């Protein structure tokens, strides 16, 4: 009987022989506690990989037209069918993930970061500066987002970088408000007063002492914004105010022929919308789990 149970030392040695890397163990723990979040993270990883490897994965070039196969329904040659120019829908969806992720990540990162900086500075300085910032934030929140985006695109013209700008601007005040609320609590911490007593400059205190302590709301806003940015980009492109043809973008693919021929060629309308939904869905799933893990009380609207 004693022989069947391995001695403790051997078990320890066996487990020491193949220690899982720390990030993997952390990931596994996250997946067990928040399975929905893990599903979201998995979809995001696949999306990123597909976007990077687009030329290898896509069966056709996204701009390659084939006038012999216009409006082809899903077949073996074109898995998801073709559009009005005979362009392969699957390939355009794959390349479209590049546009969506680029717009999503860049605008969410810039928007959340600038917003966090403004929120922390507003909470740190307090007084008149805080009041002024809050009035400005109120102003932008009351201003219709779509008008802001419309105006930015009208001034700068269409194109990926302008769309990113149009999406980022309305995000900043939103994030500033949420981060400010957390930063107000951090402001009361003794270590902030200690840093001031030690004679550190405002910049140093904001960047080194306060910003790291509002990381939780910042990260949560960041993931939430990626999904929202993808959705907003799709809406703007659908209106013809976003990314310009012939760039492959999901919202743009829904514009024009997709609606006009919804009856005869429904695949044109269904698949790009599914791609948008799946992408945003994944970021929302992951974002929710992240919020539960980092700061369950935070409410992101």
């Amino acid at each position, binding site marked *: 009987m004693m022989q069947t149970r391995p001695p403790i030392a051997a078990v320890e040695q066996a487990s020491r022989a193949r220690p899982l890397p720390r990030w993997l163990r952390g990931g596994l723990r996250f997946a067990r506690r928040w399975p929905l979040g893990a599903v979201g993270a998995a979809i995001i990883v696949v999306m990123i990989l597909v976007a990077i490897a687009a030329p290898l994965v896509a069966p056709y070039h996204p701009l390659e037209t084939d006038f012999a196969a216009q409006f082809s329904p899903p077949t073996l040659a074109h898995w998801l069918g073709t559009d009005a120019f005979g362009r392969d829908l699957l390939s355009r969806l794959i390349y479209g993930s590049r546009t969506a992720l680029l717009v999503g990540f860049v605008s969410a990162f810039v928007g959340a970061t600038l917003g966090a900086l403004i929120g922390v500075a507003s909470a740190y300085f307090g007084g008149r500066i805080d009041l002024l910032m809050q009035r400005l934030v109120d102003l932008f929140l*009351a201003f219709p987002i779509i008008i802001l985006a419309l*105006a930015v695109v009208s001034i700068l013209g269409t194109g990926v970088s302008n769309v990113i700008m149009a999406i980022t601007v309305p995000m900043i005040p939103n994030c500033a408000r949420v981060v400010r609320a957390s930063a107000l609590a951090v402001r009361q911490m003794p270590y902030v007063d200690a840093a001031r007593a030690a004679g550190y400059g405002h910049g140093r205190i904001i960047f080194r002492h306060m910003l790291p302590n509002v990381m939780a709301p910042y990260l949560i806003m960041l993931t939430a914004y990626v999904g929202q940015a993808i959705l907003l980009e799709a809406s703007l492109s659908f209106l013809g105010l976003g990314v310009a043809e012939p760039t492959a973008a999901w919202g743009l693919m829904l514009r024009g022929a997709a609606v006009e021929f919804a009856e005869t060629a429904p695949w044109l309308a269904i698949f790009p919308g599914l791609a948008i939904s799946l992408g945003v869905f994944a970021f929302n799933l992951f974002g929710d789990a992240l919020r539960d893990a980092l700061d369950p009380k935070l409410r992101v*609207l």
Partner: protein
Amino acid sequence: MHRYMLRRLLLMLPTLLGVAVLVFLLMRVVPGDIVEMRFAEGQFFNAELVAKERARLGLDRPLWRQFLDWLWGMVRLDFGLSMWSGNPIAHEIALRLQLSLQLALMATVVAVLLAIPLGTLAALRQDTWVDYVARVFAIAGLAMPSFWLGIVMFIILLAVFHWIPPMVFTPLWENPWQNLAQMIWPALAVGYRFSAVAMRMTRSAMLEVLREDYIRTARAKGLWQRLIVKRHALKNALLPVLTVIGLEFAFLLGGLVVTEQVFNLNGLGLLFVQSVARRDYTLVQALVLLVAFVYILVNFCVDLLYGWLDPRLRYQ
């Protein structure tokens, strides 16, 4: 309480003034003005005619004069004339407001009917399959663009019933049946997203409230679960839900630009896009100010409702 209300009402003014300045400047920064837009359609382009038209619309005056004149009109509730059509702006907006208001109200009804029972159920059965299904339903609602849902609805209606909703708007009092046959689809498409937002808030607020001491007390004294949920938990959990519903409603009035286009609805959203494209300064300014005003007003009303629903809150 009255002082608080008065202060809040006064604080609305600087925000509205800021919105007015912002939209005024924004529209002037956008390249091209209404005269150019209009003459771009015709063949003849003559400098004298352009100057004359600009003078007629008052665009040749200094900016500050234009702004103050417009603001003075706004203060007297005189919205002025649309630069493009020449009709009174109040008339142009009133036509569309019925439609947008009806759609927003219907979507809100859809959202409330879905969100509150589902959100409550998800919170009561936290981490069971009911909760997971409800959460996935909500997250999917946030992920699907409403305009795409509209397109898919058309495809399904056509494939299954060989029928598409009427495309011409009929006011509710003229032919309620016709009106509902058209409006129910956009209301469902928009209401789904709306219900997702409200459901998530209901769930998280319920979860918080259910952990409160007084819920445990209610359980301990043997009250029925149903009574606890209805009387004790839900009433308190509804506060943040109310905020979300109010804000979302304000957004629906002016923000449904894309969905309106898919359903061929001539609402405020479409008017927005058209008037920006035409550089109809006066109309855009009036619209933005209207939407901002509704947003601020809704915020204010929600705050007042808070005090009524939760007497513990003190206004300062």
